[in-house]
């Protein structure tokens, strides 16, 4: 088997979905800089794409599109600042991820500032859910070992921040099931 065959086999397995996480990450990193590889992946995705027709559609929950718009609005400032950096695939993704991480972090800091700064402004008993949502959010970040900041990627940190904010939002909105699922998931994450 030649090297070329082997790479096509690897790419085929990537498009099919059978690779391990490490293999997927490696191929995705190479895809960003290797146009031939990127084209090979797209060719395999095209070959297998008709199979998606076999899977029956499933209606997503009605509220999801609203959440997507809300999250896009949160990132609006980021997009407005850098709309045309796009021509190179991958490069854009990385800049965007970093920008997302920065804006997500900024949001965390802002939110943290709100209640670290004003612990006494909440009249006791008026908004019990808000207090408990806030402390759940705060507890998560306190438990999250600060040293992990240095170890995880900007993308992971952004994802983590977004999820923590979503958990807080869900809790505030009274969607306890959603909030608990998100907070539980955050606690189980390993870095």
């Amino acid at each position, binding site marked *: 088997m030649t090297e070329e*065959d082997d790479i*096509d*086999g690897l790419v*085929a*397995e990537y498009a*099919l*979905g*059978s*690779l*391990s*996480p490490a293999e*997927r990450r490696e191929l995705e990193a190479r895809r960003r800089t290797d146009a031939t590889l990127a084209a090979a992946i*797209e*060719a395999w*995705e*095209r*070959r*297998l*794409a*008709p*199979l*998606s*027709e*076999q*899977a*029956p*559609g*499933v*209606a*997503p*929950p009605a509220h*999801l*599109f609203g*959440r*997507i*718009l809300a*999250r*896009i609005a949160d*990132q609006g400032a980021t*997009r407005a600042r850098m*709309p045309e950096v*796009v021509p190179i*695939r991958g490069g*854009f*993704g990385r800049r*965007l991820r970093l920008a997302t991480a920065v804006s997500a972090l900024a949001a965390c800091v802002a939110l943290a500032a709100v209640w670290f700064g004003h612990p006494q402004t909440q009249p006791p008993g008026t908004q019990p859910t808000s207090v408990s949502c806030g402390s759940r959010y705060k507890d998560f970040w306190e438990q999250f070992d600060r040293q992990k900041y240095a170890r995880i990627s900007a993308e992971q940190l952004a994802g983590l921040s977004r*999820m923590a904010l979503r958990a807080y939002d869900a809790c505030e909105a009274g969607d306890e099931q*959603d909030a608990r*699922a998100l907070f539980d998931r955050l606690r189980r994450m390993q870095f």
Partner: protein
Amino acid sequence: MPVSRQDLVAALQQTARGDQAAFRLLYEATSLKLYGIIVRILGRRDLADEVLQEVYIRVWQRAGDFDATSGSPITWLAAIARNLALDEARRKSPRSLDEFPEVLRLPSEDDPAAAQERSEELKRLEACLDGLEADKKELVLLVYHYGMTREEISGRINRPVATVKTWLRRSLAQLRDCLGQ
């Protein structure tokens, strides 16, 4: 909502320019399909909800990357959905074999409703899949629809991982040659 390929291309191009109405149309036309793909791979609605959001946020951010001359919009969207779902599925590995169905259930060819919707591309691919041995065909479909890794398949069929890898690669090479593209 049945929308033509041309409509989807236009919606993607308008989305790339920040048009939210076009983005909504794109979501309405494609979310049923993409959510179906994601739910099947993840098997859990709560995780699928999050991945679907990530998918459309990525679509909003990167619609400008879509190249209408080199592919169909639904293929491009489905690839994003599959890749994010597979990444999410890998995060909670190893999964228990109980999480996968005993048998692969897909709309059968005898089902007239399903038959009507089959594209020429799917018919051609299915003809090539029928050229594989039955157990190899099932492996290919299990991986595609449920995102099973070689290790997970190895546990399911009680064969070494290396054998699974060889089978998958041979089957895929055979499909590529059969399709001739």
